[in-house]
Each structure stands twice: as C-alpha cells, then as structure tokens.
C-alpha cells in the first residue's frame, strides 16, 4: 500500500465517523409516532403509544406494521428478502424500517398520529 492509499482510507473513516455522529445527534429522542410512506407518499401515521397491527397491501406487496410497547417493527412481509423484518424495532426519531422491494419506509417522527388513518391501496 502506498501513502495515498492510507489517506483514502483515513478520509473515508473520518467521513463515516462524522456522519455517524451527525445522525446520532440529529435523532435519538423518543418519537411520538410512526409515519409510513409507500412510493414516497404518506400512507398513514400511527401513534407509538397505541398497540396496533396495521396491514399494508399495496401493488408491490404485503407488510404488517406492528406497534408494541412503544416500539414498531414489521411482520408478515411477502417480499423476497425479508430484510424489513430483520431490521428490528424502532422507537427514536429518525429511525427507519425499509422494505425496498415494496418501496415502503416507516419512520419515527416527533408528532402525534393524525386522526384519520389512511390505508394504502
């Protein structure tokens, strides 16, 4: 390895460290609700204090958002990789669950849940 190689490695590590710190401080507060977007459009917002199971049947496929004990996770996904189920539970603002094949993103936000639940079609 040459000197400049180490420089590249150091620069990338530094950038990764800075980004990690920024994201850590940007989020981290306990959130109020989970906002689910499909294809970039808000499909619904659900309060974290409420225990609930919300099914999402979109043209891309099926996922169920489960909120238990103030945390949200995804179950029953029929996507090929099931990564969304493996991403675990989220409860702090900015944390996300992503199902790429279904273009579905669940993100914890500070706000309260909206009164009207819109189920994605």
């Amino acid at each position, binding site marked *: 390895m040459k000197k400049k190689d180490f420089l590249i490695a150091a620069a990338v*590590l530094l950038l990764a460290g800075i980004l*990690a710190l920024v994201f850590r401080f940007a989020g981290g507060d306990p959130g109020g609700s989970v906002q689910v977007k499909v294809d970039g459009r808000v499909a619904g917002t659900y309060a974290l204090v409420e225990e609930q199971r919300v099914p999402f049947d979109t043209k891309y496929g099926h996922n169920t958002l489960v909120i238990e004990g103030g945390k949200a996770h995804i179950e029953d996904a029929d996507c090929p990789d099931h*990564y969304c189920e493996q991403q675990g539970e989220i409860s702090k603002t*900015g944390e996300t669950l992503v199902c790429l094949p279904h273009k579905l*993103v669940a*993100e914890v936000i500070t706000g309260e849940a909206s009164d009207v639940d819109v189920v994605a079609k």
Partner: protein
Amino acid sequence: MATSRKSPTGTPGRRVALDGILVALAMIFSYMETFIPFNFGVPGIKLGLANLVVLLGLTFLPAVDVLLISLVRILLSSLLFGNVMSLWYSLAGGLLSFAAMYLLSRRDDISLIGMSMTGGVLHNVGQVITAAIVVRTLQLAGYLPVLLVAGLVTGAIIGTLAKLLMPRVQKALQSFQ
C-alpha cells in the same frame, strides 16, 4: 497504477476473445459471491469479487474494454441471478465505482488497494443513492456510515487479492499473445 497500457490483445479477434473470457470470469465471480455470506449488519453487502476483473483489467486493457466487460457482466448477472431492481442497483454502483477507479488507475501514487477501496466505497454510495430514489426517502443516508466502512473493508480485501494475482495474470497474458 499508471503502468504502460500497451495493448496485450493484439488482433481484434484476440481482443474480442479475451474480453469475452473476462466477462465469463466476472460472471462466475458474481455467481460465487451469492454463496459467500458477508454479514455487516446491513443487508446486501457483498465482497465484490467481480471487481477483481475491473481492477486488473484497468491495469492491462484499454479502459473502454473494461467498461464494456463490466456493463455486460452487470446486465447478464442481474438477468440470471437477480431481478430488474438489482440491475439498477448494480448499474449505479458499478458505473460510479468504475469512474473513480479509472481516474485513480492513471495515477502513480495510488496502488490497486487504494483503487479498490475507493471503488468499494463508491459502489455502496451509488447503491444507497439508488435506494433513496426508489423509496423517495433521504432517511436512507443513515446507512451511509456503515456502508462506507463496509466498502472500505471489502475494497481492501479485493485490492489485496488483486495485488497478489497481478504477477500471475501478467504471465498468463504474455502466453495469450
């Protein structure tokens, strides 16, 4: 890495044949990779074995050939082992990392390992950007720190492998002429 890039391929026929062999080799690497679990805590991280062909190709072959080999490899392995979506992810990652590695390959002060690390990192950056476009959510940037480090590590591994393979490839190419 700016070694003299005299064409090792000779006649057009030889050039096509060699490029074809390298596409096949890269595809075998892509396929082998599906059997190697490489868990970094974030889904979808791969070792990037096919990048060996690009790295060594950039040392011995005209850059156009390497770009074409890479594009054909991505197209064919997405069709065979992936799906339409994986084609876009691979293309974004592949093109971004190729551009960076090509620029670095013309420099004397960057080794194969430096090239490969940059390629690995940018490959992952390209994929995150594609994913962010697919789900239309910038929040995916949260995965960047892990993916940057992952690209660095896989890039260093592949770069080291490429360095070890280089003398053998050089020898093989001489007998090909």
